[in-house]
């Protein structure tokens, strides 16, 4: 099981500002190990952010998103105390879901 994400969700005016840091190696499949063997690709392909049962952002990623991916975006309609949930799914079928409570406002 992958390490938890670090998620911050803060009110900025009438919008919720979400910043997330995911723990993932994001291996490209092009890199070789010390013995010269190719390291198989291992990367997050789907990211979904939901709030109140509604998707507020969904992403598809390739191998060129940096290791330990960072994501930052804003949406309307959230209030302090409500939850923001982020789920990622990688090419090996590993999955991780974490949530944060909206702060401030």
């Amino acid at each position, binding site marked *: 099981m992958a390490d938890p994400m670090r998620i911050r969700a803060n009110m900025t005016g009438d*919008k919720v500002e979400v910043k997330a840091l995911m723990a993932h190696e*994001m291996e*490209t*499949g*092009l*890199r*070789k190990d010390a013995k010269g063997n*190719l390291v*198989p*690709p291992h990367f997050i*392909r*789907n990211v*979904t952010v939901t709030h109140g049962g*509604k*998707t*507020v*952002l*969904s*992403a*598809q*990623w*390739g*191998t*060129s*998103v*940096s*290791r330990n*991916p*960072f*994501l*930052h*975006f*804003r*949406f*309307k*309609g959230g209030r302090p105390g409500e939850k923001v949930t982020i789920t990622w*799914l*990688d*090419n*090996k*079928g590993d999955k991780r879901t974490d949530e944060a409570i909206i702060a401030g406002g």
Partner: protein
Amino acid sequence: MDAKRREVLKTGGGVLALAAAAGIIKPGEALAQEWNKAAFDSKSVADTVKALGGGASTPSSAIEIIAPDIAENGAVVPVAVESRLPRTQAIAILIEKNPNTLSAEFAIPAGTDPFVSTRVKMGETSNVYALVIADGKYFHAVKEIKVTIGGCGG
């Protein structure tokens, strides 16, 4: 030196394709979510736009790419895209000279700002495209980011 590096990358890709064909690399379990393989396999900006369902895209000054002019470390290049186009539905980040052009695509539902910020890997100095789908039409902006140390391993 640069040419050699490209060779290594190319050979790497070939071996990988063979491994995939031979079934050594198994695709993940049945995925609940859609992943546009054709788009992520694309090797050029034009092919990526096509794989994302567009014919061609129009340059637009209403798209802003917020990124450094020079990235010291190609493994971690901060890139943000902001669109001022009405009814922005999706934002994609394309890196022309990477082995695969498409880095990330974000679907922007109504209520979410047409803005995303992330960090990407760049193998070498390249044009970075922000492709925006707004009201069913395709638009883009370009910015060159110079890379001092490449970030694709190897």
